């Protein structure tokens, strides 16, 4: 009880001041975008008393935004599906076989995750420019090429997510299934994967998000034909800054905040329900 009275082992006022400064620092650039998105001017500026939704409107009327959003959604869904499929296969393999060889393979598979993005970008650029005549559907500045680039970058992250979920699955349920006569594939499909389904969903979600906002590799492997949403934002940010970028940013920030809050409300409700049941 003396602890509460003294309390000197808890953070004091000085660290509280620093932490509130840090919080302002973290939130400031996100908050700053909001007023700018409502400016009535054609250029990037504060509203100065005159508010307008014209830049939100531009997102719907100017076809370049709609096109790039649609393209990013399509690429994100396909890249996420492929990444998740590859991550689940490899993750299961690693779950069943743990020896020096499989661990060496895992080290190889995680390479794109630990590599600086610019190095991955130049590597995939090299691959895709040399595929122009050999396999044009995955070459430089094609939708297939961007999907491939995103798969390479996102799969290690999907794999980590899936492996975390898989590590919580009890190996004995697989042994029980196999002992009762299930084949390897029957056990995987009917026993192991259903028990790791949340891991698969999280992996797919993460892969989608990584593809949806991927820019470093995309910048190297596209030019004029394939313009994803981040690429479009990048183009609009370079010289004359288009205020529509502020509008799309506010929408994306709102979605993120809503998603995090929804997740927490669901979690809190489940916890409350579990308490009631217990």
């Amino acid at each position, binding site marked *: 009880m003396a602890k509460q009275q003294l309390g000197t082992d808890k953070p004091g006022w000085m660290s509280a001041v620093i*932490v509130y400064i840090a919080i302002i*620092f973290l939130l400031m650039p*996100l908050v700053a975008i909001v007023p700018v998105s409502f400016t009535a001017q054609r250029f990037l500026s504060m509203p100065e008393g005159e508010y307008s939704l014209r830049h939100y409107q531009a997102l719907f009327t100017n076809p370049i935004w709609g096109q790039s959003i649609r393209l990013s959604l399509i690429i994100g869904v396909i890249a996420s599906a492929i990444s998740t499929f590859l991550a689940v296969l490899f993750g299961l393999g690693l779950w069943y076989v743990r020896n020096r060889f499989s661990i060496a393979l895992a080290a190889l598979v995680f390479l794109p995750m630990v590599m600086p*993005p610019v190095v991955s970008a130049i590597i995939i650029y090299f*691959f895709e420019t040399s595929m122009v005549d050999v396999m044009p559907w995955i070459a430089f500045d094609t939708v297939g090429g961007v999907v491939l680039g995103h798969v390479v970058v996102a799969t290690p992250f999907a794999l980590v997510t899936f492996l975390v979920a898989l590590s919580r699955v009890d190996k004995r349920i697989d042994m029980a299934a196999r002992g009762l006569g299930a084949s390897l594939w029957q056990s995987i499909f009917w026993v192991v994967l259903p028990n790791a389904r949340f891991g698969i969903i999280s992996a797919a979600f993460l892969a989608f998000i990584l593809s949806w906002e991927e820019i470093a590799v995309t910048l190297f492997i596209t030019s004029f034909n394939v313009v994803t949403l981040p690429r479009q934002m990048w183009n609009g940010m370079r010289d004359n800054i288009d205020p529509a970028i502020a509008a799309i940013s506010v929408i994306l920030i709102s979605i993120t*905040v809503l998603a995090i809050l929804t997740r927490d409300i669901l979690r809190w409700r489940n916890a409350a329900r579990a308490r009631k049941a217990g």
Partner: protein
Amino acid sequence: MSNTWGRYAILLAPLPLLLVLVYVLPFLGVAKWSFTDPEVGLGQYVRVFTDETVRSVVIRTARVCAIVTIASVTLAYAISYNWVFGPPGRQRLIEYCVLIPFWISVLIRAFGWLILLRNNGIINSALMDIGLISRPITMVRNEFGSIVGMTHFLVPFAVFPLASAMRQVDARVLQAASGLGAGRMRIFWTVTVPMTLPGIIGAALIVYVFAIGFFITPAILSGGRSVMVAEFIYLQLFQTVNWGLASALSVMLLVVVVLLGFVLHKVVRLDKLFG
């Protein structure tokens, strides 16, 4: 043994096979460029160390990344410390303030800083309105912009390892120090900081490794003025069309990252040794 392999090869083979084809072999191609473009030899590597422009880019990268690392780890330490030991309300606030920026794209975050720091941006306008300055302070298109934007991006990445290091600290040790009469400052500097030192070193290495390969934020906030290695590689590839130099720098970047990764690995082991 071979029987087992046949069955599990279908699971284990596809992903590594794909990566060998589209990542490992092309990397060898990039490495080959660095020795053959424009002529065979070590010319491009010699350039990395002797050319005035390249050297200034490398030195600037090392310096900016060092500043960013110190700033990020310091802020992240204050955040983690309050996240783990602070009152519950503050803990929840911190959680949101770390997670929300973490999930928002690097482009949007750099764009937010551009709005704040531009010459006719929010900060300069506000300072001029209240009469503190008469001419805008240049905060973008120079190193300052990159440092602010990169620090903002990397703080959450430093918070996660630091918070996990702090959760491992036994709260009773801190209570014991307090009970024995140590003040807040003394506990912080002689107990908390030394006990989380492996976490600090780990976080600093992670931030530094991320920072040296960083490209988007400096390109937006320094606007091609104070170019760092990653953006320099992009420019060499697409504007100067000097593929050999771009490749040589990529290979060097890779070597540095591998070396730092090795140090990180040692530190993590040290952590286990002391934990």
